[in-house]
């Protein structure tokens, strides 16, 4: 099958009335929750996971993709209107987006970010469709040794791209993998570190861990901050950017899309870098770089497109290799597992309708965001004015229903509470929770592939060096780790994340 017939299959799946409806609802509720200040995409998706339970796998994944894009777009909206970025990706948007909003151009900032995201989404969809087949073919040839090396490289990327201390990021990844070993052993079935608890015998549930250390711990952290919300008052201005603004934005949008598409595919959280990279690039190329930070439309258009393109191409490693490149994709793994789908190269060959339907629905989701969001901006602004003292009990209720419904087990809710406290303390000690989650998701695969590789090589560790692919991947990992320890590069890395 070639690209066109694949996409045709995808669109015929995604265009069914039911799936269109699900994509629409997904985008709508995703935006609705994602827009709440301090609620990032991870918490949003976890919270909304239960509403996809009763749906068939294709529909559920289409809806989840919609929720994801909605959450992304909602994050940008609250970054522009309230200056509270819901996630790292929209930090850059907040800089000039909020400055534009203060100048009465909030409408144009929202408009250009929707238009930019849509263009980026269209291009990224084609990129995914084009790369899916060759990458899947490659992945099907991977042996356990290569897989192990690939995952090590992914985790090393995650360390190098994490904020703050490299050492602490390493510790979090190790801790994540350690947590994943709790439960029955893969081969012997022996209970590991369960303390005789039947609840732990199946291992820690992914959504429980994610909701605890991301969702709830965020609530606890926000509660300390006190209310400092700077919702823009007065006029939003027209939603459509002027012709002059469009003309200035088109090149940044295309450059941002290119950057985002490439960085998003990187294992580790490449997508997070994309908006930063785009901002830096646009500032360098700008005729009036002094306007950046004061409401330059290029500084909204570029990073927003990069953010969306990266968000979308980060599906590539998940769908083709079965390896989630970042925490959000890790949640997608959890969601797919609940639907009985194990992500990996076999998905495309075994259920092509699901695979291509999901890719087609990405484009549809982007179109819907454009259609839903622009007219609804007024409603979003009103939502942003709900005070946090009411917002957080609502978040807690939603999340508790979600966690409870995964298994209809109140113990899960208790565990989530425990992880919330742990997550809060970890943040206080300067640890980032994202690498922990990534390590946790990859933990099973790493152990399984290591054990298989060792069995095949009769216990010879040299198998990793004799296998050319795994040797290259491991050498890249070691090189990156060494580079990231170099003082000059470390300074550069800090700079990227503290670009204010």
């Amino acid at each position: 099958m070639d690209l066109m017939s694949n996409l045709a299959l995808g669109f015929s799946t995604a265009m069914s009335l039911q799936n269109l409806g699900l994509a629409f609802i997904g985008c709508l509720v995703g935006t609705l929750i994602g827009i709440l200040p301090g609620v990032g995409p991870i918490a949003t998706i976890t919270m909304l996971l239960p509403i996809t339970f009763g749906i068939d796998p294709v529909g559920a994944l289409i809806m989840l993709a919609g929720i994801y894009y909605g959450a992304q777009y909602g994050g940008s909206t609250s970054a522009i209107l309230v200056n509270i970025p819901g996630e790292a990706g929209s930090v850059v948007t907040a800089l000039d987006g909020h400055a534009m909003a203060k100048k009465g151009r909030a409408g144009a900032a929202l408009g250009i970010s929707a238009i930019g995201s849509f263009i980026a989404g269209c291009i990224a969809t084609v990129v995914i469709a084009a790369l899916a087949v060759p990458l899947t073919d490659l992945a099907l040839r991977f042996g356990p040794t290569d897989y192990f090396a690939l995952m090590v490289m992914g985790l090393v990327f995650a360390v190098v791209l994490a904020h703050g201390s490299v050492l602490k990021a390493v510790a979090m990844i190790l801790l994540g993998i350690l947590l994943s070993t709790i439960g029955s052993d893969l081969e012997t079935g022996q209970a590991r570190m369960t303390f005789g608890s039947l609840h732990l015998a199946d291992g820690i549930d992914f959504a429980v861990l994610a909701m605890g250390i991301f969702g709830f711990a965020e609530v606890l952290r926000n509660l300390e901050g006190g209310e400092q919300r700077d919702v823009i008052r007065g006029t939003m201005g027209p939603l459509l950017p002027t012709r002059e603004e469009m003309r200035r934005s088109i090149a940044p949008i295309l450059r941002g899309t290119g950057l985002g598409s490439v960085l998003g595919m990187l294992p580790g959280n490449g997508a997070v870098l994309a908006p930063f990279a785009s901002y830096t690039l646009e500032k360098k190329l700008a005729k009036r770089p002094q306007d950046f930070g004061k409401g330059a439309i290029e500084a909204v258009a570029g990073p927003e497109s990069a953010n969306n393109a990266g968000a979308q191409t980060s599906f590539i490693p998940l769908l083709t290799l079965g390896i989630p490149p970042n925490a959000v994709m890790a949640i997608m793994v959890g969601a797919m597992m609940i639907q009985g789908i194990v992500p990996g190269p076999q998905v495309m060959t075994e259920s092509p309708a699901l695979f291509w339907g999901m890719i087609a629905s990405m484009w549809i989701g982007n179109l819907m965001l454009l259609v839903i969001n622009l007219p609804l901006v007024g409603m979003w602004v009103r939502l942003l004015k709900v005070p946090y003292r009411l917002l957080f009990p609502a978040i807690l209720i939603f999340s508790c229903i979600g966690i409870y419904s995964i298994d209809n087990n109140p113990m899960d809710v208790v565990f989530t509470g425990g992880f919330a406290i742990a997550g809060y303390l970890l943040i206080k000690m300067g640890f980032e929770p994202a690498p922990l989650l990534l390590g946790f998701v990859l933990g099973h695969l790493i152990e399984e592939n290591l054990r298989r590789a060792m069995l095949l090589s009769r216990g010879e560790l040299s198998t990793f060096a004799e296998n050319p692919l795994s040797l290259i991947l491991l050498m890249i990992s070691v090189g990156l780790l060494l580079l990231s320890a170099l003082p000059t590069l470390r300074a550069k890395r800090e700079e990227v994340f503290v670009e204010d």
Partner: protein
Amino acid sequence: MTDQSQPIEGLGRPRLSQDRVAGLTLIAVSAFALWASSDLETGTLRFIGPGLMPRLLASLVGVTGLILLVLSFLRLGEAMPRIALRGPVCVLAGILAFALTVQTVGFAIAAPLLAMLAGLADRDMRWIELLGFAAFMTVGCILVFKVGLNLPIPILTIPGIIQY
């Protein structure tokens, strides 16, 4: 990153190194995991047993903790930020109350209970407003999740009288 709203460091409370606390915590976690996995066989490299990965990882966590601990004596890092009590205690109480009541009494009681207990975490909370909002949220969630999505959440159970 310094927080302006907090009292000046070193006044009233001794300065605690963030890295030192982090290192000690990792060492404690590592020791606990080593103890918890001590009954599992390591196996050989060819036939890796269930105990190898947990113990290997726990040891590595311990090593990173040790490095952090040593570094905390060599360089002056960030100080441990203040840890709030009110927020975590109230939110945790709410979550536990929800977990205890959702199956026995039902969601119609568990949700407002969660909202009210957790609501105490915010100093600005107003009883009447929160109560009204909790009732609104509860009814909304019942309509969405039970009526709309048909999820099997027990709403209200009073033995012998009502079971929904």
